[in-house]
């Protein structure tokens, strides 16, 4: 009998709705809510021995929450952890993905389910993620696919696209029958034969960014300074993460001519911050910007700066930050920006 532990958002365990989104991780015996249907689908050779739940705000934003959830999962001695389905729910998807990734790192087998557009998909690490529909009204087919995939994982079989596998599929080393040089000759013959798809390495999907047109007249433009160097007030009031940032913050520059050492701090975890902290202008050049403002080289300096930590940040989050920053700056009237990178 295979032991399965199910991870669910607090809502599906009857704790409450959005008002309970901050509730702490909890474990209860047996299958709960959609877990009951999942248990039926899995049949008598499998048992959902426990259900672990957590509020989505707590799971997605409190740094210790995922480790606490994994401890509860581990206490139930699972052969497999099943998280979700999370559909398109962003915070729930992040929670399911991070729980599955952390459980896998902790040596457990884990699988999650969510919609392919869920922002959590990129955070599942090496744990497999199975596609679900957009919303809970599609719970039935989502559980069918999840149960079938879970049974396959427990049987030691590999999952593929036919099982609904989505997201990043890790590339693993193996020994080929023939050496690379011989395979290269075969590949070039395929290519000459008109096969443009044949390759052993898929093209990485890098975004192409078209640079904006130059600013026509900087002397009348409001310039914003932005940074991914994680420079924040010394006590880090917004709790910006040092790595894998999930948020960005804004702080006021109104009335400030300089950034005084000791009052500002870089919390970036990807480089030695000694020199940044000794002179914060090395990250955010407020001194130079104010001088340009006084000289009339720029119209005005935007009265706040936007900041995040660019260190192992997921591409999905970085893209979201970029969209939000652009929208924010347009609303505020800034028409030019300098983004410093570390």
């Amino acid at each position: 009998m295979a032991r399965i532990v199910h991870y669910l958002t607090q809502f599906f365990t009857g704790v409450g709705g959005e008002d309970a989104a901050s509730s702490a991780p909890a474990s209860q015996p047996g299958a709960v809510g959609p877990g009951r249907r999942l248990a039926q689908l899995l049949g008598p050779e499998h048992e959902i021995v426990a259900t672990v739940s957590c509020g989505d705000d707590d799971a997605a934003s409190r740094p210790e929450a995922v480790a606490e959830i994994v401890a509860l999962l581990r206490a139930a001695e699972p052969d497999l952890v099943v998280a979700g389905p999370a559909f398109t729910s962003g915070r729930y998807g992040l929670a399911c993905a991070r729980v599955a990734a952390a459980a896998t790192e902790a040596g457990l087998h884990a699988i999650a389910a969510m919609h392919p557009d869920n922002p959590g998909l990129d955070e599942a690490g090496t744990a497999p993620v199975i596609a679900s529909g957009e919303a809970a009204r599609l719970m039935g087919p989502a559980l069918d696919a999840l149960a079938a995939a879970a049974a396959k994982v427990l049987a030691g079989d590999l999952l593929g696209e036919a099982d609904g596998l989505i997201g990043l599929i890790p590339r693993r080393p193996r020994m080929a029958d023939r050496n690379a040089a011989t395979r290269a000759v075969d590949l070039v013959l395929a290519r000459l034969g008109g096969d443009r798809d044949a390759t052993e390495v898929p093209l990485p999907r890098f975004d192409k960014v078209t640079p904006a047109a130059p600013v026509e007249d900087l002397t009348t433009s409001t310039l914003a300074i932005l940074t991914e160097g994680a420079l924040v007030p010394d006590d880090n009031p917004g709790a910006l993460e040092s790595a894998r940032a999930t948020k960005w913050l804004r702080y006021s520059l109104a009335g400030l001519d300089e950034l005084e050492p000791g009052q500002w701090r870089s919390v970036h975890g990807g480089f030695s911050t000694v020199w940044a902290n000794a002179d914060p202008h090395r990250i955010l050049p407020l001194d130079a910007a104010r001088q340009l403002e006084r000289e009339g080289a720029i119209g005005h300096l935007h009265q706040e700066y936007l900041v995040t930590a660019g260190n192992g940040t997921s591409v999905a989050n970085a893209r979201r930050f970029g969209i939000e920053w652009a929208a924010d700056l347009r609303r505020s009237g800034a028409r030019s920006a300098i983004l410093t990178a570390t």
Partner: protein
Amino acid sequence: MSDVLTRAVHQVRSVSLGPATAWRDGELVVSADEARALLSSPCLAEVKITWASPGDAVRIVKILDVVEPRTKGPGGAGIFPGWTVPAPSSPAEAHGQGAVHVLRGAAVMVAGYLPRAQEAVVDMTGPAAALSPFGSTHNLVVEFTPTPDADWAEVDDALRRGSLVLAAHLAEAALDAPPDEVEELPGPGPVDGLPRVATITNLQTQGAFKDVFVHGRSFNGQPPTLVDPGELDAGAVISGQFGHPSLRNPTWAHQNHPVVNALRARHGRDVSFAGVVLCPEPVNAADKQAVSLAAARVCAEAGFDAVLITKEGGGNADADMALKMDALEELGIAAVGLFAEMAGPDGSGPPIVVAPEKATAMISTGNYDTRLDLPEMERALGGAEVALLNVPATAAMELPTAVILAALSPLGWGHLTCSPVPA
């Protein structure tokens, strides 16, 4: 008009040290005194000679270059041009004919500290042995102590010159013995109805201790150059490139260029082997662009239908690949690149650093970041420690594939690859 028409292969079955260097029916006996004398230099205080054979519980660390013993006749007769003999002074000399005698299964391996060299490791047993060409060769390991205040560039030069002279000397022992096999090497040339396929071999030429030599001179700053593949067999390309261990091409790999061998093996069957273009890999982007465009034009002028492109080094070398592949495709020449992946320990990161935009066909020679669990060894050569981990060189340790010499062989020696395997 190939430089070397045949390879007379003497298969090395066993090795030992003895009073005089000799070849006895598959056994290579080496005189350590003779070897030391050939390597003697004012900048080397001490040289130690040791055999490490397949299956031995030996780990060799800090490996610099590896050379296959070869000669073309008494005194070398033109082997390793520019080192053991002056560089060719006429085209006819460069394209001389003859047989090259090869001690297959043996290698001269220099190991020890040089500045800027990244630590390269070979295990003679355990899981890493199968990943390097040198886990299955009998390696004559040359360890050295420089004289006090010796100039490092002179030490590097003395080791290179000495190991090439030694490699030629060892092969000379078998010169009069009947070879196990004589390999006919087809020269490049058109075959009616078959596509003309060539190779571009990028050489990482990025300054001292990270340089590659052609006919005894640094190839840094040289233009893309069409060479006779036989010149590779004669040792025209010599490595002084001690960067990324798994992604470097030791001299042995140029002598046994796997893509050239694969094209020769298919010549007249399904391809027409069309030639070899050597290219430098410069440091800055504008030079990479200029060299890549020039290389593509050489291939177009030479009438190639398709080109296999190889790299040397880490992420920046992917740009040299991508630029050439795109330039070739733009000229209507099919391009295939041999890449190593740098996809993180779990294989979930982007596999390559700079991707082509027009070309699409790539071979994977494995993942740089894959971790290997290496067992404890009885002996270590080349150094007492693996500096990367600060542990005794004989200890059991976990290392990335990146550290195993030629494990991701950019010239295509290995069988390692990656594929998307669902969890």
